[in-house]
């Protein structure tokens, strides 16, 4: 299908247009500068439609300009009565048929792409073997994002790490109102609906990088501040990140004394909503790798000043209407310092957004993440040579898909009641 499109491109010298458009916006945010499979396909489709539209527009404009200049009433012509034409079958047929043809040209790839993008079945390698799939359960809440990697016991919030060697499948649900998950450079958006209505899609980054994500459905006062990031790292780095994250239990003692005191403060005041280490979705973001984040609460620069204001004011001014405003705690400046220091120790991994930008590529087939699966739900696959393209057993089924299917029946929801835990 992509081949078909590329040939089309050649015919119309569309690359020129792509170049012009790509002058627009920032490479981490603009849909015109795609870095992922989905966004690239969509840009192709967009360019095809723009070309058709330009064609139509030019024709309309030629007639329009001609008519306005040619048939304008001149001085002294006031009494001329033009011929009263009723119509013309030939012309009318012409401008019925041509648009139909143009629309068909647009409709066919539209349908193909619509189906292609909805496909979350396992990818296959060139040899026809199925790749292991990574499934992430995404939860949107006012105004932050939560990510749980299925089967591999890693939980994180705000920043989603993905490997660049394969698609990552998302299964998305909302905890409250409708949100919409959009990373323009990687993939088109998909709504995140409340209970019962689970949505699935895949994302795939072709290059390493930190890509900005936005919430695209009005969800309350801080809708415009519900940013998140996709951190696309090489497979080796991803594997390492997962292992580092898995090793965090939340009990680790920080080194400095202030930080230890901070840990206590945190345990007393914050643990009801925030978790450290893998845990079910809570009322607030998971803070396991908080100190590695690029942004605080998704949008603010990560610095002491902002963090202090956030904790001291519960983000009241910073993110109006956010749910941390319900937190009952009342901390002294001292305690805030301590907890800040503690929070800044939460950096379990070498792999951070930095790693996505430093150009180092570490290879892996991620087999470490998919140990032999036991329950007979499908065979694991750990044998591979570890070169570029990962290979895996052809029988490797993916079972998480089945789980998600079950989710979409009405009323069966496993996310929404978790937030009241504790």
């Amino acid at each position, binding site marked *: 299908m992509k081949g078909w499109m590329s040939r089309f491109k050649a015919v119309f010298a569309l690359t020129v247009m792509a170049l012009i458009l790509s002058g627009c916006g920032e490479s981490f945010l603009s849909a015109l500068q795609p870095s992922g499979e989905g966004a690239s396909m969509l840009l192709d489709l967009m360019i095809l439609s723009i070309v058709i539209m330009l064609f139509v527009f030019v024709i309309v404009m030629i007639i329009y300009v001609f008519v306005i200049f040619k048939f304008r009433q001149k001085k002294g012509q006031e009494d001329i009565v033009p011929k009263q034409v009723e119509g013309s079958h030939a012309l009318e047929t012409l401008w019925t048929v041509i648009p139909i043809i143009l629309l068909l040209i647009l409709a066919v790839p539209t349908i193909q792409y619509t189906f292609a993008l909805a496909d979350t079945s396992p990818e296959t390698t060139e040899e026809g073997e199925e790749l292991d799939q990574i499934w992430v359960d995404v939860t949107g809440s006012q105004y932050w994002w939560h990510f749980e990697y299925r089967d591999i016991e890693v939980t994180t919030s705000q920043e989603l790490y993905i490997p660049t060697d394969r698609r990552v499948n998302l299964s998305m649900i909302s905890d409250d109102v409708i949100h919409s998950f959009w990373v323009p450079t990687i993939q088109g958006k998909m709504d995140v609906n409340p209970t*019962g*209505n689970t949505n699935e899609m895949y994302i795939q980054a072709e290059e390493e990088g930190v890509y900005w994500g936005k919430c695209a459905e009005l969800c309350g006062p801080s809708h415009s501040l519900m940013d998140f990031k996709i951190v696309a790292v090489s497979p080796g780095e991803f594997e390492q990140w997962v292992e580092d994250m898995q090793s965090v239990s939340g009990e680790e003692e920080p080194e400095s004394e202030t930080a230890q005191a901070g840990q206590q403060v945190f345990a007393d005041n914050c643990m009801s909503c925030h978790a450290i280490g893998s845990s079910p979705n809570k009322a607030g973001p998971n803070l396991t790798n908080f100190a590695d984040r690029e942004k605080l609460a998704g949008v603010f620069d990560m610095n002491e000043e902002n963090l202090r204001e956030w904790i001291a004011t519960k983000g009241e001014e910073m993110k109006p209407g956010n749910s941390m405003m319900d937190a009952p705690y009342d901390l002294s400046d001292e305690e805030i310092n301590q907890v800040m220091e503690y929070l800044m120790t939460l950096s379990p991994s070498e792999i951070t957004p930095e790693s996505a930008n430093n150009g180092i590529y570490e290879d892996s087939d991620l087999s470490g993440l998919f140990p032999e699966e036991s329950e007979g739900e499908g065979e694991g696959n750990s044998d591979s040579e570890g070169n570029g393209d990962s290979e895996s057993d052809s029988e490797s089924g993916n079972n998480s898909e089945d789980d998600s299917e079950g989710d*979409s029946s*009405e009323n069966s929801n496993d996310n929404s009641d978790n937030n009241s835990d504790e």
Partner: protein
Amino acid sequence: MADHTNSVENTDKHEFYKKKHREQMKHQVVTFVMMIAFTLIAFGLVIAEVSAMFTIPIILVLAAVQVLFQLYYFMHMNEEGHQWPAVMIYSGIFAAVLTILALTTITWW
């Protein structure tokens, strides 16, 4: 507007209409009996717990036919002067069917 005073002076005509009305009334009573019968059938199918696969389409069809009876006989859509009412009712039914289809099939799947 002005012609009503003399239009029915003619008693023959009057008698003729009366007879026509009586004819119509007979149709309507038959319609009514059939509607009651349809209701009974539908009711019976459900009470007798005949297989759902069979019952559901049947009772829906019975309902639809009853509606047509109402429209054409009770509400006189079979008489002349009802072209526009028919157009609008059928357009309404068209929009109605789309709405119901949407809400029953693609609300979620």
